[in-house]
């Protein structure tokens, strides 16, 4: 907990420095306050694998957001809090997703504080995306992220966009507690994961990204040096699990070519550290059949191949897999949409079936359905076999204030 306070204090200091530069803050302050309340119900289809685990996990999350802008929006302070209450004490947690000062001037901008940044083009996995730590207890798809302390400088030129990140503090991946689902046989306490660097979470990290869009091509090249977001994990029959955050170099490539109804996508990384060097690849396409028979309905077909040459040392299950999915957008008044997909292991029998659907109710509510089904999980799946009893269906009602 102490470390969290350190983050907030440093953010506060950074903000006061940033504010001090603007001696006269215009009276024209533009405030915006919002709150989302999410009522989540997750029902697990199979009996527990470990003592204490439940079948039904009701849960409540609050997402307050506050933005204040001044000088015509050239300066702003952006705050997004997040708190969840859950049956699993570890999943009950609080975070500032964002808490940053933002300044825009002509073709450049500066952000100081906790922020979320996304990199990538593919749908089934986000290999290149590395700035933020994953809030892994939030969702299985890894798309929920923790706020990352940073100074980000971004400049837009005729040759593309250059981003420079200074990341002074590492945040540990959240992990479930003993009564939570998606746990390992041995409970890894998030705080007990070790660091390779002697400076621990204070290893000073750097990242660079170059992005450009030329006609139908979108390109992103990135480099990250610092403490990895993914723990290096070794599953051991005797001592259980050894986990540590290594210091890594990661080179990333994102490429998308949009050609009429086809979007060709490729993401690849090369990551190296003292213990391992590996290549990861995620490539495929999305093809959209739009406005079928003038009904307004769009059906997207997604096919992606996933590769990772770490083998059993990977902290994920996507070493040589294929993702097939379909995105259906009804384009109706309620924005109804469905995403269905299956990740199939090309060497083993394992399959993960996913469904995500959402529909707006009235004008200030939304209903979301999420499901993950783990089927035919192979016995020799080192990572995935832990979750073979964690198939679930979740229904979330969100109210926006």
């Amino acid at each position: 907990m102490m470390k969290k306070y350190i983050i907030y204090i440093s953010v506060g200091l950074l903000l006061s420095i940033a504010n001090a530069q603007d001696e006269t803050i215009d009276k024209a302050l533009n405030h915006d306050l919002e709150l989302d309340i999410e009522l989540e119900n997750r029902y697990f289809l199979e009996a527990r694998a470990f003592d204490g685990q439940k079948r039904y996990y009701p849960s409540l999350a609050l997402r307050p957001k506050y933005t204040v802008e001044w000088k015509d929006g050239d300066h702003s302070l952006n705050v997004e809090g997040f708190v969840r209450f859950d049956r699993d004490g570890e999943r009950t947690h609080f975070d500032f997703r964002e808490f940053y000062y933002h300044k825009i001037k002509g073709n450049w901008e500066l952000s100081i504080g906790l922020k979320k940044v996304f990199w990538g083009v593919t749908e089934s996995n986000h290999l290149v995306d590395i700035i933020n730590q994953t809030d892994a207890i939030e969702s299985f798809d890894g798309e929920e992220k923790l706020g990352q302390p940073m100074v980000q400088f971004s400049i837009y030129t005729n040759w593309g966009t250059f981003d420079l990140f200074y990341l002074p503090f590492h945040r540990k991946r959240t992990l479930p507690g003993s009564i939570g689902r998606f746990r390992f046989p041995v409970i890894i306490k998030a705080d007990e994961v070790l660091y390779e660097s002697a400076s621990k979470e204070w290893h000073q990290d750097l990242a660079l990204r170059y992005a450009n869009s030329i006609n139908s091509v979108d390109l992103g090249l990135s480099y990250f040096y610092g403490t990895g977001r993914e723990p290096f994990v070794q599953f051991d029959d005797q001592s259980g699990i050894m986990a540590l955050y290594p210091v890594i170099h990661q080179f990333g490539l994102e490429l998308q070519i949009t050609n009429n109804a086809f979007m060709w996508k490729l993401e690849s990384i090369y990551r190296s550290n003292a213990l391992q060097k590996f290549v990861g690849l995620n490539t495929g396409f999305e093809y959209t059949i739009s406005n079928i028979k003038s009904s307004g309905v769009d059906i997207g077909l997604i096919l992606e191949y996933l590769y990772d040459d770490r083998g059993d040392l990977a902290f994920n299950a996507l070493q040589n897999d294929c993702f097939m999915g379909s995105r259906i957008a009804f384009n109706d008044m309620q924005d109804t949409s469905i995403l269905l997909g299956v990740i199939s292991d090309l060497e083993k029998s394992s399959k993960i079936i996913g469904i995500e659907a959402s529909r707006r109710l009235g004008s200030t509510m939304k209903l979301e359905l999420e499901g993950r089904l783990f089927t035919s999980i192979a016995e020799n799946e080192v990572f995935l076999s832990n979750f073979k009893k964690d198939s679930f269906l979740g229904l979330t009602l969100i109210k926006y204030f």
Partner: protein
Amino acid sequence: MKNVLFTVVLSLALYTVSQAQDRGLEIAQAAEKADLGFKSSASNLKMVLKNKNGQVSERALEVRTLELVEDGDKSLIIFSSPKDVKGTSTLTFTHKNGPDDQWLYLPSIKRVKRISSNNKSGPFVGSEFAYEDLSSQEVEKYTYKFLREENNYLVVEQYPVDPKSGYTRRVVTYNKDAGYRIETIAFYDRKNALLKTLTYSGYKLYKNNFWRAAKLNMVNHQSKKETVLEFLNYDFDVNLTDDDFTQNALRRN
């Protein structure tokens, strides 16, 4: 003799056709010329969607446009309601020839996604406006045929160049006494049946030069649904530049 007569009739017919084409194109060019030089603008909009049972759903959005002469305009659309889509925004680079470039920003995961602009005929946010109805109206995107002149109104039939358009033709009524502003558009579907009618109203002259309607009413005659697009304001003094139409700018809102 028969042949000569036939040739004369045919060439007269062809002459009339090409004349009608020329006049139609001239009117579209005149309309484009009359609107040249606005440089940039910003507007707040309210969109009211009505289904055939009279149920209503509202959207609030902001549209920023940057005028480009060499190529099509750039535009940024930012949604502020309904609240579940607040902050969702799109950036479009219209091109006079070839497909437009379009990016979508999803605020919940901070992701900018390049999206296909292939879907011209599909509905814009569940409304009766198709994407192609709202995209920058470049002269090059249609071929033309002048139909008739009624008082100060000029009626021109327009045929979309893009085979992916949802229309066989549009019948556009221009007002030649008011900067060739558009008064109505009738849309005919792929089977050449009347699909929709768009009526512009509440026109005001801005900067002594640019006619802008306060209300666009789109009625779908086949589904009996209706969408009203209300422009709550027009700001021609925003002085937007290329820097305001980048993927970074898309993320800011």
